[in-house]
């Protein structure tokens, strides 16, 4: 027998970016505690559809914590209160029968609400387009071990590369800053030899784009690190600061 619970949901409903939006109350009944948060929303949406009402729009894709598409603010916490968890991996066993849950979209100037809980996070893609890549020449593939990378450095790069671009760092930052995301994307490349040739241009362009998109300024509140589902460390932000200042003051890049 699986345990079931009943919940009251206060969900942000907004028809589109022009609509002002408001909270509506729904009742989620007989929710199995084995369900994920998104499955719980599916159940609510099924009922809404049967009742001829508009289902709640929310983003999702893999539902296994690797794609970065899901994410809402649940009771004031991005992806809910569990540590190192995406919303799709947040299970209903962390809630109690009779709980009231407030569900809001990620809020930032740079993330416009598309509908209800779905927000436009293409601003993060624009930061990547500004320099979050390495240029690779075509031709005969070189030997895989030609460039040596110490294990420790590879691990650090892999830690940074865990970022799934979900935007929870922006959502949880009191300043709506995208520094943790940008720092992870800069770090994963800056740490490796393949990323070095374009390091200066990358840091300058990505930070410049981040600023232009209307994200806030980092004030080292460290809420992002505490909330990130992939537990990306703020040491990456320090690395981004170094990369950026080095590029700004000492490189030939403008």
């Amino acid at each position, binding site marked *: 027998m699986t345990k079931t619970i009943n919940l009251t949901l206060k969900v942000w409903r907004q028809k589109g970016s022009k609509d002002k939006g408001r909270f509506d109350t729904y009742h989620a009944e007989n929710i199995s505690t084995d369900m994920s948060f998104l499955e719980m929303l599916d159940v609510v949406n099924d009922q809404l559809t049967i009742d001829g009402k508009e289902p709640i729009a929310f983003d999702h894709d893999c539902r296994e914590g690797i794609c970065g598409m899901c994410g809402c603010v649940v009771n004031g916490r991005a992806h809910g209160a569990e540590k190192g968890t995406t919303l799709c991996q947040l299970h209903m066993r962390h809630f109690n029968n009779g709980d009231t849950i*407030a569900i809001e979209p990620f809020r930032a100037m740079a993330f416009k609400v598309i509908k209800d809980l779905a927000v436009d996070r293409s601003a993060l893609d624009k930061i990547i387009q500004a320099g979050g890549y390495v240029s690779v020449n075509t031709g005969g593939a070189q030997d895989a071990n030609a460039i040596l990378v110490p294990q420790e450095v590879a691990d650090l790069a892999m830690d940074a590369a865990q970022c799934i671009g979900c935007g929870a760092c922006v959502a949880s930052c*009191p300043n709506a800053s995208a520094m943790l995301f940008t720092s992870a994307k800069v770090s994963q490349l800056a740490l490796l030899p393949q990323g070095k040739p374009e390091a200066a241009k990358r840091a300058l362009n990505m930070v410049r784009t981040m600023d232009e998109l209307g994200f806030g300024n980092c004030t080292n509140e460290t809420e992002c690190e505490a909330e990130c589902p992939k537990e990306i460390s703020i040491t990456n932000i320090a690395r981004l600061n170094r990369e950026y200042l080095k590029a700004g003051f000492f490189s030939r890049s403008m």
Partner: protein
Amino acid sequence: MNWITGTLGSSIGKKLMMAITGFSFCGFLAAHLAGNLTIYGGKEAFNGYAAHLHALGPLLTVAELGLLTFALVHVITGLTLFLGNLKARPVRYAVNKSAGGRTVGSATMPYTGVILLAFIIFHLMNFHFVDKTDTTIFNIVANAFSNTGYVLVYIVAMVAAAIHVSHGFWSAFQTVGANHPKYMPLFRTVSIAFAVVVGIGFGFLPIYIFLLA
């Protein structure tokens, strides 16, 4: 875009200016506190310290102008960052909880900053821009702190300073990129220790003078 304004005008550049000016103020606080401790040596010691300081002449003026410039940079940049951050989240959350990252210090930086700015103006008007021809600095200080209101204002300001420094000190290291697993725990501990030293070190002086009178 000129490369200097481009680099310093970015979000990271502005933070760098906050960090460098902030570091200087930490240095200034330490020096100021060390000087103030001469008050425990009594009237002569304190007046002697003031006389030594003024004997520096033009050097002192240069230091004062430097501090004034840094203060302007710190305040104007801080204000720009604060307003920019308000703009970055036009719609606030209905329910907002901390994940445990923020501290009292980090969450109140703009507010403790404003308190400190108001205090510094008040403080300079009390002890700096006053006629000292027929009196000594010790008398001015002793006179001011015989008043409970003054003592209270100073204590509140020093608590604000301690809270501000508790975040500002380690945060400045992070901003200049000095986050290293070997040293960061130390910076964070020193940050708290320095905050306590500033709070108690400066905060107890008015109480001491008050009790003496």
